[in-house]
């Protein structure tokens, strides 16, 4: 019996080691490519970790210091941060309303917000493009190719997600607590500031981090609805495909930089990421 257990332990460890190699090997190769010159990448792939001896920093400095990728990076930071802030505030308000008020049809509203997330974005590309470039027009200002346009647009898939995530948390705060505060004469703002936000703080943090991540990672809508001024890092990455004679080293460097926030979050909220991505649905 005991040998059998040891045996299965060894088997499981072996399986997971293999899996870890499969997961990390492509990423490791990308890091290698990002540190090499085009000449070094020519010919048979060299898998040894040459970045310990020599890093070709030009792959990073060329796009991010001299090139337009600095602007793309800046746009990405602005768009993702503002979107995360906006989504968190709006979702907190909406969730509170859905959770505490007996609004007629609030169930349907909740369900309707969810359908916004399920829809394939490719189906909305054309109408959004037309609305952004021709219909929503205020003088010379259109939403096309603006950061504000992207910030508002990303609410469509981030808000339903944030509401879903926060609903469970706010439902979990006892109603009696806000009722007691109302009796004491507190207004809505005080209830949020003194009760809801402190008690739901971990959930709010996870919600805003994940909203940031989704906005940061979004590609399809950004590539269609921007052209010059509001391009984000993912759209910049795709530009490498169309150009002839791709500079692989630079492409790997840009990909690596655009992966960084994801890596940081992984360490910060690893446990919550899964719960968040499953929409909290497992609970129900």
């Amino acid at each position, binding site marked *: 019996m005991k040998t059998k257990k040891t045996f299965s*332990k060894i088997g*499981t*460890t072996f399986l*997971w080691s293999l899996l870890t190699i499969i997961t*990390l*090997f*492509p990423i490791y*190769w*990308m890091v290698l*490519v990002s540190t090499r010159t085009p000449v070094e*990448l020519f010919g*048979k*792939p060299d*898998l040894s970790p040459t970045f310990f001896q020599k890093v070709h920093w030009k792959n990073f400095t060329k796009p991010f210091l001299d090139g337009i990728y600095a602007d793309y990076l800046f746009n990405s930071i602005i768009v993702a941060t503002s979107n995360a802030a906006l989504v968190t505030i709006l*979702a907190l*308000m*909406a969730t509170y*309303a859905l959770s505490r*008020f*007996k*609004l007629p049809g609030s169930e349907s*509203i909740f369900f*309707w*917000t969810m359908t*916004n997330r399920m*829809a*394939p974005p*490719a*189906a*909305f*590309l*054309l*109408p*959004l493009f037309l609305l952004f470039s021709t*219909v929503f027009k205020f003088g010379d200002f259109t939403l096309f190719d603006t950061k504000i346009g992207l910030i*508002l647009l990303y609410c469509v898939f981030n808000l*339903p997600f944030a509401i879903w995530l926060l609903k469970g948390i706010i439902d979990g705060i006892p109603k009696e607590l806000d009722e007691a505060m109302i009796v004491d004469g507190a207004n809505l703002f005080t209830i949020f500031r003194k009760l809801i936000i402190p008690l739901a703080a971990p959930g709010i943090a996870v919600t805003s981090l994940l909203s940031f991540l989704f906005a*940061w*990672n*979004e*590609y*399809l809508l950004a590539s*269609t609805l921007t052209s010059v001024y509001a391009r984000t890092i*993912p759209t910049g*990455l*795709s530009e490498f*495909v169309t150009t002839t004679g791709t500079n*692989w080293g630079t*492409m*790997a460097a840009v*990909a690596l930089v*655009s*992966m960084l926030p994801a890596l940081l*979050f*992984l360490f910060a909220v*690893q446990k919550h990421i*899964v719960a968040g*991505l499953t*929409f909290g*649905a497992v609970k129900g």
Partner: protein
Amino acid sequence: MLSKNKTGWLLLSPTILILALAGLLPFIYVLYVGFFQWNPLAVDPSLQFEGFASNYRRLIFDEVFLESIWRSIKFSVVTLTIELSLGFILALSLLSSFPLKSFFRSVHTLPLVIAPIVVGSIFKLFTVQGLGPLPHILKDYFGYTLNYGLNADQAFWMIVIMDVWHWTPFVTLTLLAGLSALPQDPYESAKIDGANNFQIFTYITIPMMVPVLIVVIFIRLMDSLKIVDEVWMLTGGGPGYATRFTGIHIWKEVFEKRYYGLGSAMSILYLYITIVICWVLYSVMVARGKNED
């Protein structure tokens, strides 16, 4: 002082406004445009009405479009099957204890947070002819030529492999969450009754996991039906039509050929198909929930 319900609506209004403007309005607009012929690059760049539902009639006989839908469905079913079986095995293995478990699990979470477009780049760098190590390894050790730029089957399966690499962790970790939340009593009584591991798995674990499984299938199916980014980065929909999934097809028709009217009709049909699949699964979920009550 506002009445209680008014305050509620006030709190909800910004959300409803944004979702209506960016979610509902585009839908109505695309429904409208779908009834017209519209090509802004044509001699007459205005909306032309050519009979009721002319675009839809055209689409029903459009083989490329229908094939792209069929391809998307095939892709979704294939990846779902692989990810679900693999994910279940891995989730079960994570229930036991073995050395370095938390390290392995952390690494396994990594692909989840990487942007699809970056996953596409990683795989492009890894598998492209001339640069990537994978074609070299396959050629040198197995005598197998990998060139998905030319071979349609290889391109399709390359996308499948990429999707499995990217999303199996999601399935594993969700199923793990479900498995760890299962009540322990049935297992104990089964053991007392002398059931073996296989019996415990088929008669206890699987039936109790059905709700979680349905949720996972639901989320993964919706996501893989709308796949665009990774495919665009890796193969650009080619070679030929080999990896042209519906999302990519619509994009190409609309933004390369500028068939606005036809593209709108496609969007509507695409949405319709997604909704039907979604609705069928949702009904299964609800029916299941009622049975349990």
